[in-house]
């Protein structure tokens, strides 16, 4: 019995440590890490990735590198976007939510426009004008 309570204490200690250590771990899936309001970014694409766990664009905005996160690949492809739809050097306009962390240059996009075509990767989240 005494042994059990020792182990119990040990387990609750490690659980508590885990929770303390991981506040920012409730991030990047979903929107908990982003601002509520929408922002717009315009830049030059430097890298296109359409794949698991989610698609991303690296874009250059006035000399700064931003990461624009899109949806998981199946959903991104369903929106019409693929690795063939954009290439480095193309100009992109992205609408979405910026990271709450101002030092982090990262956006979770709901809509991107490249080469005159608009892709709604999260159609139900695109803000109505």
């Amino acid at each position, binding site marked *: 019995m005494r042994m059990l309570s020792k182990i119990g204490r040990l387990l609750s200690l490690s659980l508590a440590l885990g929770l303390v250590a991981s506040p920012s771990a409730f991030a990047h899936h979903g929107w908990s890490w982003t601002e509520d309001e929408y922002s717009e970014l315009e830049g030059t694409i430097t890298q296109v990735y359409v794949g698991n766990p989610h698609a991303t664009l690296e874009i250059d905005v006035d000399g700064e590198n931003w990461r624009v996160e899109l949806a998981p*690949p199946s959903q991104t492809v369903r929106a019409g976007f693929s690795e063939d739809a954009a290439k480095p050097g193309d100009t992109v306009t992205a609408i979405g939510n910026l990271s709450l962390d101002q030092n982090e240059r990262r956006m979770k996009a709901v809509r991107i426009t490249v080469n005159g075509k608009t892709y709604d990767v999260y159609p139900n989240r695109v803000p109505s004008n």
Partner: protein
Amino acid sequence: MEFLQAIEQLAPIRALRISFYAYPLVNAAHVLAIGALVTSVTLMDLRILGFLTAQERRPFLKLMRRVGIAAFCGAAATGLLLFSVRASEYFFNPAFRLKMVLIALAGLNLLALRLFASGPGGMPRERSAVIFAGLSMVLWLGVLVCGRFIGFL
């Protein structure tokens, strides 16, 4: 870098990258393997530390070792697949790098246990193995936490 990009271009890896079912299933298998690994390692270490004395030492440690080795192989195989999907990105991820360092340290710790604190049949000794068991628990929990952080950096 070229080697990492070559991995990404392998046909099965390309398929995994855009798959709807396979990637989450491999991911689930990785979580399962890590759960089994950390559980068996923790139980084994607790027994070496002198807890769980209701379990007969020798057969219990043998069983946990078998489960642990199988779980590690599963975690390594599924982990390699998850890594390959975006190898040239993950390779530079600080959480990924720390995780690999901690796995290497856990391996060295296991080697040291076998060399300096084990008796016949690779059974850890009652007293001298305690320090290695304690370190092992900390290291594997660290591996788990680092792994979770890879996706958030």
